[in-house]
């Protein structure tokens, strides 16, 4: 059964795009999953490579976030799911200022 991995496209010059890879995963099922794992690992190494600098716009918050406290774990199974879809919007109401 094909495995569909729905993630946003991430372009890495050396590796192509994740979108393209997820397409191939869809076709190749478990081989594709292994390929995706390898890709994720390589991508992580690439993002954390030495000398990597973020784009020209510097937006350093200048502080560290307080870590969220871990209280436990959940075990979940992925079920086939539909996209959330757009919410119903009343255009007349949304034209008014919020508060």
């Amino acid at each position, binding site marked *: 059964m094909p495995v569909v991995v729905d993630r946003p496209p991430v372009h890495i010059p050396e590796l192509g795009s994740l979108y393209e890879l997820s397409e191939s995963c869809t076709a190749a099922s*478990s081989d594709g999953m292994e390929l995706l794992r390898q890709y994720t690992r390589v991508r992580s190494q690439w993002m954390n490579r030495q000398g990597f600098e973020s784009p*020209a716009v510097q937006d350093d918050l*200048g502080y560290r976030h307080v870590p969220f406290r*871990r*209280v436990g774990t*959940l*075990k979940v199974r992925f079920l086939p799911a539909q996209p959330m879809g757009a919410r119903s919007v009343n255009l007349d109401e949304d034209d008014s200022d*919020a508060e």
Partner: protein
Amino acid sequence: MSESWWITVSGSSLAQGDLLPDCLMPVFTDPTPRPDNAPVEIQVKTQRLIVVTQSCDLENNKIEFVALCPIHTLDEFAEPNVKFKNRKNYEGVRKGTHHALHMLASPEDPDNNDRALVVDFGQIVGLPLSYLAEHAGSLGERNRLRSPYLEHFSQAFARFFMRVGLPSSIPEFK
């Protein structure tokens, strides 16, 4: 004695500026489905949060998810930010010069700046309205930021969120 920045409310009705301790949130670190659809373990974390979604959107159930930001005591915030162990370094936060941080007076002791709280706009959490309403109802009496401190807080969040970074800037005047 300073007036309180907060009112006490109870029940499941939510509004902007509601302080909600002990919120639970699942954190997906590896959301990749396993080939055999075996169960995947995800972490559950907890945090004290404050609602940033506009009250009118909450009242009319216009949304399914609520935006919230973490809110810390000064000691909690100083734990990973050692320079804030010196209380004097909070003066910039109090004056509003750190765009990602916003200081609120303590609900219990507004005159004691040592017990003030710091909101971190740099981390925005989205949780289901239905979960938060039930959680809020289970808390009993809880704190809600009141006007005009609420609008001041809301404006600070908007100012943080709407900021624009430029790729280059005009050289500094010296």
